[in-house]
Protein backbone atom coordinates (compact mmCIF):
# COMPACT_ATOMS: atom_id res chain seq x y z
CA UNK A 1 0.00 0.00 0.00
CA UNK A 2 2.71 2.47 0.89
CA UNK A 3 4.03 2.93 -2.61
CA UNK A 4 5.28 6.33 -3.71
CA UNK A 5 2.13 7.23 -5.65
CA UNK A 6 0.01 6.59 -2.58
CA UNK A 7 2.23 8.75 -0.35
CA UNK A 8 2.45 11.63 -2.87
CA UNK A 9 -1.25 11.53 -3.70
CA UNK A 10 -2.17 11.76 -0.04
CA UNK A 11 0.40 14.48 0.74
CA UNK A 12 -1.03 16.63 -2.04
CA UNK A 13 -4.59 15.93 -0.94
CA UNK A 14 -3.90 16.84 2.70
CA UNK A 15 -2.10 20.05 1.67
CA UNK A 16 -4.94 21.07 -0.64
CA UNK A 17 -7.69 20.40 1.91
CA UNK A 18 -5.80 22.19 4.71
CA UNK A 19 -5.19 25.27 2.55
CA UNK A 20 -8.84 25.39 1.38
CA UNK A 21 -10.06 25.28 4.99
CA UNK A 22 -7.66 28.01 6.18
CA UNK A 23 -8.28 30.32 3.19
CA UNK A 24 -12.06 29.93 3.54
CA UNK A 25 -11.77 30.65 7.28
CA UNK A 26 -9.83 33.81 6.38
CA UNK A 27 -12.42 34.98 3.84
CA UNK A 28 -15.18 34.35 6.38
CA UNK A 29 -13.32 36.25 9.11
CA UNK A 30 -12.93 39.25 6.80
CA UNK A 31 -16.73 39.46 6.85
CA UNK A 32 -17.37 38.49 10.46
CA UNK A 33 -14.50 40.34 12.24
CA UNK A 34 -13.98 43.40 10.04
CA UNK A 35 -12.24 45.35 12.81
CA UNK A 36 -9.35 42.88 13.14
CA UNK A 37 -7.42 44.22 10.15
CA UNK A 38 -6.02 47.73 9.78
CA UNK A 39 -7.67 47.74 6.36
CA UNK A 40 -11.40 47.87 5.65
CA UNK A 41 -13.06 45.07 3.66
CA UNK A 42 -13.48 47.32 0.62
CA UNK A 43 -9.79 48.25 0.79
CA UNK A 44 -8.75 44.59 1.00
CA UNK A 45 -11.15 43.30 -1.66
CA UNK A 46 -10.33 45.90 -4.29
CA UNK A 47 -8.54 45.14 -7.59
CA UNK A 48 -6.02 47.90 -6.83
CA UNK A 49 -5.70 47.19 -3.09
CA UNK A 50 -2.66 48.65 -1.32
CA UNK A 51 -2.47 45.58 0.91
CA UNK A 52 -0.20 42.82 -0.40
CA UNK A 53 2.28 40.14 0.61
CA UNK A 54 5.20 42.59 1.02
CA UNK A 55 3.40 43.93 4.12
CA UNK A 56 2.85 40.47 5.63
CA UNK A 57 5.77 39.28 7.76
CA UNK A 58 5.90 35.73 9.06
CA UNK A 59 7.05 37.12 12.41
CA UNK A 60 3.68 38.86 12.85
CA UNK A 61 1.72 35.82 11.63
CA UNK A 62 0.90 34.57 15.14
CA UNK A 63 -0.37 37.95 16.29
CA UNK A 64 -2.49 38.27 13.19
CA UNK A 65 -4.02 34.82 13.67
CA UNK A 66 -4.68 35.48 17.36
CA UNK A 67 -6.57 38.68 16.62
CA UNK A 68 -8.64 36.72 14.03
CA UNK A 69 -7.39 38.92 11.20
CA UNK A 70 -8.73 37.24 8.03
CA UNK A 71 -5.82 38.52 5.95
CA UNK A 72 -3.36 36.46 8.00
CA UNK A 73 -5.51 33.35 7.70
CA UNK A 74 -5.60 33.72 3.90
CA UNK A 75 -1.84 34.21 3.76
CA UNK A 76 -1.30 31.18 6.00
CA UNK A 77 -3.53 29.14 3.68
CA UNK A 78 -1.46 30.30 0.68
CA UNK A 79 1.74 29.43 2.56
CA UNK A 80 0.40 25.89 3.14
CA UNK A 81 -0.39 25.67 -0.57
CA UNK A 82 3.18 26.73 -1.44
CA UNK A 83 4.69 24.29 1.10
CA UNK A 84 2.77 21.30 -0.30
CA UNK A 85 5.02 20.66 -3.36
CA UNK A 86 8.09 21.06 -1.14
CA UNK A 87 6.69 18.43 1.24
CA UNK A 88 6.07 15.94 -1.54
CA UNK A 89 9.63 16.35 -2.85
CA UNK A 90 11.00 15.87 0.69
CA UNK A 91 8.98 12.67 1.19
CA UNK A 92 10.17 11.37 -2.20
CA UNK A 93 13.81 11.78 -1.15
CA UNK A 94 13.15 9.61 1.93
CA UNK A 95 11.21 7.05 -0.08
CA UNK A 96 13.89 6.57 -2.77
CA UNK A 97 16.60 6.48 -0.09
CA UNK A 98 14.75 3.76 1.76
CA UNK A 99 14.31 1.80 -1.49
CA UNK A 100 18.05 2.22 -2.18
CA UNK A 101 17.30 3.73 -5.57
CA UNK A 102 20.53 5.76 -5.72
CA UNK A 103 19.93 7.72 -8.89
CA UNK A 104 16.47 8.89 -7.81
CA UNK A 105 17.62 9.68 -4.26
CA UNK A 106 20.19 11.96 -5.88
CA UNK A 107 17.71 13.45 -8.37
CA UNK A 108 15.05 14.25 -5.76
CA UNK A 109 17.67 15.61 -3.34
CA UNK A 110 18.90 18.04 -6.03
CA UNK A 111 15.32 19.18 -6.68
CA UNK A 112 14.77 19.68 -2.95
CA UNK A 113 17.98 21.72 -2.58
CA UNK A 114 16.99 23.87 -5.59
CA UNK A 115 13.60 24.57 -4.02
CA UNK A 116 14.99 25.41 -0.59
CA UNK A 117 17.61 27.72 -2.11
CA UNK A 118 14.94 29.44 -4.19
CA UNK A 119 12.61 29.91 -1.24
CA UNK A 120 15.04 30.84 1.53
CA UNK A 121 18.24 32.18 -0.08
CA UNK A 122 17.35 33.88 -3.39
CA UNK A 123 14.87 36.40 -1.83
CA UNK A 124 17.76 37.80 0.26
CA UNK A 125 19.32 39.08 -2.96
CA UNK A 126 16.19 40.68 -4.36
Amino acid at each position, binding site marked *: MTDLEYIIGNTLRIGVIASIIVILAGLTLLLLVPGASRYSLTAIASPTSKLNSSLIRFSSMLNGLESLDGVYF*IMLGLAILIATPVARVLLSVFWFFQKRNR*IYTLITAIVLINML*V*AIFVIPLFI
Partner: protein
Amino acid sequence: MVLLFFILLLVGGIAAGFIGSLVGLGGAIVLVPLLSIGLGVPLYYATGSALIATIATSSGAASAYVKDRITNVKIGMSLEIATTLGAIAGSLLAAYIYKIGALSIIFVVFGIVLLSSVYQSFKKRKLELPKRMRPDSTTRIFQLEGSYYDEYLKRRVKYHGIRWFQSEAIMLAAGVISGLLGVGSGVLKVLSMDQAMNLPQKVSTTTSNFMIGVTAAVGTAIYWKLGYIQPFIAGTAAIGVLIGAYIGSKKLNSMRNVGIRTLFIVVLVVLGVEMILRGIL
Protein backbone atom coordinates in the same frame (compact mmCIF):
# COMPACT_ATOMS: atom_id res chain seq x y z
CA MET B 1 -19.25 45.40 -5.38
CA VAL B 2 -17.11 43.21 -3.14
CA LEU B 3 -19.48 40.29 -3.69
CA LEU B 4 -19.40 40.70 -7.48
CA PHE B 5 -15.59 40.87 -7.47
CA PHE B 6 -15.51 37.74 -5.29
CA ILE B 7 -17.82 35.78 -7.61
CA LEU B 8 -15.93 36.80 -10.77
CA LEU B 9 -12.60 35.79 -9.17
CA LEU B 10 -14.08 32.46 -8.12
CA VAL B 11 -15.58 31.70 -11.54
CA GLY B 12 -12.37 32.76 -13.31
CA GLY B 13 -10.44 30.47 -10.99
CA ILE B 14 -12.74 27.53 -11.71
CA ALA B 15 -12.31 28.02 -15.48
CA ALA B 16 -8.52 28.32 -15.12
CA GLY B 17 -8.29 25.22 -12.91
CA PHE B 18 -10.53 23.18 -15.21
CA ILE B 19 -8.63 23.97 -18.40
CA GLY B 20 -5.26 23.80 -16.67
CA SER B 21 -5.92 20.34 -15.23
CA LEU B 22 -6.99 18.95 -18.62
CA VAL B 23 -4.13 20.39 -20.65
CA GLY B 24 -1.32 20.27 -18.09
CA LEU B 25 -0.72 23.92 -17.36
CA GLY B 26 -1.25 26.38 -14.55
CA GLY B 27 -4.10 28.46 -15.88
CA ALA B 28 -2.22 31.76 -16.19
CA ILE B 29 -3.38 31.81 -19.81
CA VAL B 30 -6.94 32.27 -18.50
CA LEU B 31 -6.30 34.18 -15.29
CA VAL B 32 -3.84 36.88 -16.36
CA PRO B 33 -5.96 38.40 -19.15
CA LEU B 34 -9.17 37.92 -17.16
CA LEU B 35 -7.82 39.68 -14.08
CA SER B 36 -5.87 42.43 -15.80
CA ILE B 37 -8.09 43.26 -18.76
CA GLY B 38 -11.42 42.02 -17.43
CA LEU B 39 -11.30 43.10 -13.79
CA GLY B 40 -8.78 45.94 -13.80
CA VAL B 41 -6.30 44.17 -11.54
CA PRO B 42 -2.73 45.48 -11.98
CA LEU B 43 -0.46 43.10 -13.91
CA TYR B 44 1.76 42.35 -10.90
CA TYR B 45 -1.20 41.15 -8.80
CA ALA B 46 -2.52 39.19 -11.80
CA THR B 47 0.86 37.47 -12.28
CA GLY B 48 1.16 36.74 -8.55
CA SER B 49 -2.32 35.22 -8.47
CA ALA B 50 -1.50 33.14 -11.54
CA LEU B 51 1.59 31.75 -9.82
CA ILE B 52 -0.50 30.75 -6.80
CA ALA B 53 -3.13 29.35 -9.19
CA THR B 54 -0.45 27.21 -10.84
CA ILE B 55 0.44 25.57 -7.53
CA ALA B 56 -3.26 25.08 -6.78
CA THR B 57 -3.93 23.47 -10.18
CA SER B 58 -0.90 21.27 -9.75
CA SER B 59 -1.65 19.96 -6.27
CA GLY B 60 -5.41 19.80 -6.85
CA ALA B 61 -5.22 17.81 -10.09
CA ALA B 62 -2.08 15.81 -9.36
CA SER B 63 -3.48 14.42 -6.12
CA ALA B 64 -6.00 12.58 -8.30
CA TYR B 65 -3.73 11.85 -11.28
CA VAL B 66 -0.95 10.41 -9.12
CA LYS B 67 -3.36 8.19 -7.21
CA ASP B 68 -4.90 7.01 -10.48
CA ARG B 69 -1.34 6.27 -11.69
CA ILE B 70 -1.62 8.29 -14.89
CA THR B 71 1.21 10.63 -13.87
CA ASN B 72 4.68 9.21 -14.32
CA VAL B 73 6.26 10.28 -11.04
CA LYS B 74 9.82 9.30 -11.98
CA ILE B 75 9.76 11.12 -15.31
CA GLY B 76 8.31 14.18 -13.59
CA MET B 77 10.88 14.23 -10.81
CA SER B 78 13.87 13.61 -13.05
CA LEU B 79 12.85 16.55 -15.23
CA GLU B 80 12.26 18.83 -12.24
CA ILE B 81 16.04 19.22 -11.87
CA ALA B 82 16.06 21.37 -15.00
CA THR B 83 12.82 23.24 -14.34
CA THR B 84 13.85 24.32 -10.84
CA LEU B 85 17.35 25.35 -11.94
CA GLY B 86 15.86 27.21 -14.90
CA ALA B 87 13.30 28.96 -12.73
CA ILE B 88 16.02 30.15 -10.34
CA ALA B 89 18.11 31.45 -13.25
CA GLY B 90 15.05 33.11 -14.79
CA SER B 91 14.02 34.89 -11.61
CA LEU B 92 17.58 36.19 -11.08
CA LEU B 93 17.75 37.34 -14.71
CA ALA B 94 14.34 39.01 -14.58
CA ALA B 95 15.52 42.25 -12.95
CA TYR B 96 18.38 42.61 -15.44
CA ILE B 97 16.21 41.83 -18.47
CA TYR B 98 13.67 44.34 -17.23
CA LYS B 99 16.38 46.99 -16.81
CA ILE B 100 17.73 46.67 -20.34
CA GLY B 101 14.15 46.68 -21.65
CA ALA B 102 14.36 43.27 -23.30
CA LEU B 103 11.28 41.80 -21.65
CA SER B 104 9.02 42.61 -24.60
CA ILE B 105 11.43 40.85 -26.96
CA ILE B 106 11.26 37.71 -24.82
CA PHE B 107 7.46 37.78 -24.86
CA VAL B 108 7.47 37.99 -28.67
CA VAL B 109 10.10 35.28 -29.12
CA PHE B 110 8.25 32.95 -26.75
CA GLY B 111 5.01 33.62 -28.65
CA ILE B 112 6.67 32.76 -31.94
CA VAL B 113 8.14 29.57 -30.48
CA LEU B 114 4.68 28.49 -29.31
CA LEU B 115 3.05 29.23 -32.66
CA SER B 116 5.79 27.40 -34.55
CA SER B 117 5.30 24.31 -32.41
CA VAL B 118 1.65 24.12 -33.47
CA TYR B 119 2.56 22.31 -36.69
CA GLN B 120 4.41 19.48 -34.92
CA SER B 121 1.46 18.93 -32.59
CA PHE B 122 -1.01 19.22 -35.43
CA LYS B 123 0.75 16.45 -37.38
CA LYS B 124 0.05 14.04 -34.50
CA ARG B 125 -3.56 15.14 -34.09
CA LYS B 126 -5.10 11.84 -35.29
CA LEU B 127 -2.84 9.57 -33.25
CA GLU B 128 -4.63 8.28 -30.18
CA LEU B 129 -1.30 6.92 -28.89
CA PRO B 130 2.22 7.86 -30.03
CA LYS B 131 4.05 5.69 -32.58
CA ARG B 132 6.28 3.22 -30.74
CA MET B 133 9.94 4.17 -30.86
CA ARG B 134 12.90 2.12 -29.67
CA PRO B 135 14.00 2.74 -26.08
CA ASP B 136 17.38 4.45 -25.84
CA SER B 137 20.06 4.37 -23.15
CA THR B 138 18.33 7.06 -21.07
CA THR B 139 15.15 4.96 -20.96
CA ARG B 140 17.06 2.37 -18.94
CA ILE B 141 19.28 4.67 -16.86
CA PHE B 142 16.45 6.93 -15.71
CA GLN B 143 13.84 4.14 -15.51
CA LEU B 144 11.39 5.81 -17.89
CA GLU B 145 9.03 2.89 -18.50
CA GLY B 146 5.44 3.10 -17.34
CA SER B 147 1.85 2.14 -17.92
CA TYR B 148 -1.59 3.47 -17.08
CA TYR B 149 -5.16 2.26 -17.40
CA ASP B 150 -6.93 4.28 -20.09
CA GLU B 151 -10.64 4.62 -19.30
CA TYR B 152 -11.49 5.67 -22.84
CA LEU B 153 -9.62 2.82 -24.54
CA LYS B 154 -10.64 0.42 -21.74
CA ARG B 155 -7.19 -1.10 -21.56
CA ARG B 156 -3.78 -0.69 -19.97
CA VAL B 157 -1.40 1.41 -22.10
CA LYS B 158 2.30 0.63 -21.82
CA TYR B 159 4.81 3.26 -22.89
CA HIS B 160 8.38 4.39 -22.35
CA GLY B 161 10.13 7.74 -22.48
CA ILE B 162 13.13 8.41 -24.73
CA ARG B 163 15.55 11.32 -25.37
CA TRP B 164 15.80 12.30 -21.71
CA PHE B 165 18.58 14.85 -22.27
CA GLN B 166 16.70 16.62 -25.06
CA SER B 167 13.60 16.76 -22.89
CA GLU B 168 15.65 18.06 -19.97
CA ALA B 169 17.01 20.86 -22.19
CA ILE B 170 13.48 21.99 -23.11
CA MET B 171 12.57 21.80 -19.40
CA LEU B 172 15.45 24.17 -18.63
CA ALA B 173 13.93 26.66 -21.08
CA ALA B 174 10.51 26.09 -19.48
CA GLY B 175 11.99 26.94 -16.09
CA VAL B 176 13.70 30.10 -17.36
CA ILE B 177 10.50 31.28 -19.06
CA SER B 178 8.55 30.59 -15.87
CA GLY B 179 11.04 32.58 -13.79
CA LEU B 180 11.19 35.45 -16.28
CA LEU B 181 7.59 35.85 -17.37
CA GLY B 182 5.67 34.07 -14.60
CA VAL B 183 3.64 32.23 -17.25
CA GLY B 184 3.95 29.57 -19.89
CA SER B 185 6.08 26.89 -18.31
CA GLY B 186 3.32 24.24 -18.39
CA VAL B 187 2.92 24.50 -22.15
CA LEU B 188 6.64 23.94 -22.72
CA LYS B 189 6.59 20.99 -20.31
CA VAL B 190 3.80 19.29 -22.24
CA LEU B 191 5.62 19.96 -25.54
CA SER B 192 8.84 18.54 -24.12
CA MET B 193 7.25 15.28 -23.00
CA ASP B 194 5.06 14.99 -26.09
CA GLN B 195 7.65 15.82 -28.77
CA ALA B 196 10.95 14.76 -27.21
CA MET B 197 9.97 11.92 -24.88
CA ASN B 198 7.18 10.55 -27.12
CA LEU B 199 4.77 9.93 -24.22
CA PRO B 200 0.98 9.45 -24.57
CA GLN B 201 -0.91 12.76 -24.34
CA LYS B 202 -2.55 11.91 -21.02
CA VAL B 203 0.80 11.04 -19.45
CA SER B 204 2.33 14.30 -20.75
CA THR B 205 -0.60 16.34 -19.45
CA THR B 206 -0.72 14.79 -16.00
CA THR B 207 3.03 14.67 -15.52
CA SER B 208 3.25 18.34 -16.50
CA ASN B 209 0.47 19.03 -14.01
CA PHE B 210 2.47 17.23 -11.36
CA MET B 211 5.62 19.27 -12.14
CA ILE B 212 4.28 22.82 -12.48
CA GLY B 213 3.63 23.15 -8.75
CA VAL B 214 7.31 22.61 -8.03
CA THR B 215 8.43 25.09 -10.71
CA ALA B 216 5.96 27.69 -9.48
CA ALA B 217 6.90 27.19 -5.81
CA VAL B 218 10.44 28.23 -6.74
CA GLY B 219 9.19 31.68 -7.74
CA THR B 220 6.77 32.32 -4.89
CA ALA B 221 9.22 33.56 -2.25
CA ILE B 222 10.41 36.34 -4.55
CA TYR B 223 6.87 37.26 -5.54
CA TRP B 224 5.83 37.26 -1.88
CA LYS B 225 8.64 39.63 -0.95
CA LEU B 226 7.99 41.95 -3.90
CA GLY B 227 4.33 42.17 -2.88
CA TYR B 228 2.84 40.53 -5.98
CA ILE B 229 0.51 38.37 -3.90
CA GLN B 230 -2.71 40.10 -2.86
CA PRO B 231 -4.50 38.01 -0.22
CA PHE B 232 -8.09 38.50 -1.36
CA ILE B 233 -7.41 38.15 -5.10
CA ALA B 234 -4.94 35.26 -4.85
CA GLY B 235 -6.88 33.49 -2.08
CA THR B 236 -10.26 33.62 -3.82
CA ALA B 237 -8.78 32.63 -7.19
CA ALA B 238 -6.97 29.71 -5.51
CA ILE B 239 -10.23 28.35 -4.07
CA GLY B 240 -11.84 28.57 -7.52
CA VAL B 241 -8.84 26.91 -9.17
CA LEU B 242 -8.91 24.01 -6.69
CA ILE B 243 -12.59 23.41 -7.47
CA GLY B 244 -11.97 23.61 -11.24
CA ALA B 245 -8.92 21.33 -11.08
CA TYR B 246 -10.89 18.77 -9.08
CA ILE B 247 -13.66 18.70 -11.71
CA GLY B 248 -11.11 18.48 -14.55
CA SER B 249 -9.16 15.68 -12.89
CA LYS B 250 -12.32 13.55 -12.69
CA LYS B 251 -12.95 14.06 -16.40
CA LEU B 252 -9.55 13.64 -18.05
CA ASN B 253 -9.17 9.87 -18.11
CA SER B 254 -12.50 9.26 -19.84
CA MET B 255 -11.60 11.69 -22.63
CA ARG B 256 -9.82 10.70 -25.84
CA ASN B 257 -6.13 11.58 -26.12
CA VAL B 258 -7.03 13.13 -29.47
CA GLY B 259 -9.53 15.45 -27.77
CA ILE B 260 -7.03 16.56 -25.16
CA ARG B 261 -4.50 17.24 -27.90
CA THR B 262 -6.99 19.37 -29.83
CA LEU B 263 -7.64 21.42 -26.69
CA PHE B 264 -3.88 21.75 -26.22
CA ILE B 265 -3.39 23.01 -29.80
CA VAL B 266 -6.07 25.67 -29.21
CA VAL B 267 -4.24 26.72 -26.02
CA LEU B 268 -0.93 26.88 -27.94
CA VAL B 269 -2.41 29.26 -30.50
CA VAL B 270 -4.18 31.45 -27.92
CA LEU B 271 -1.15 31.66 -25.65
CA GLY B 272 1.18 32.32 -28.59
CA VAL B 273 -0.94 35.25 -29.74
CA GLU B 274 -1.36 36.46 -26.14
CA MET B 275 2.42 36.49 -25.61
CA ILE B 276 3.13 38.36 -28.87
CA LEU B 277 0.47 40.93 -27.99
CA ARG B 278 1.95 41.43 -24.53
CA GLY B 279 5.32 41.96 -26.15
CA ILE B 280 4.28 44.56 -28.68
CA LEU B 281 1.55 46.42 -26.77
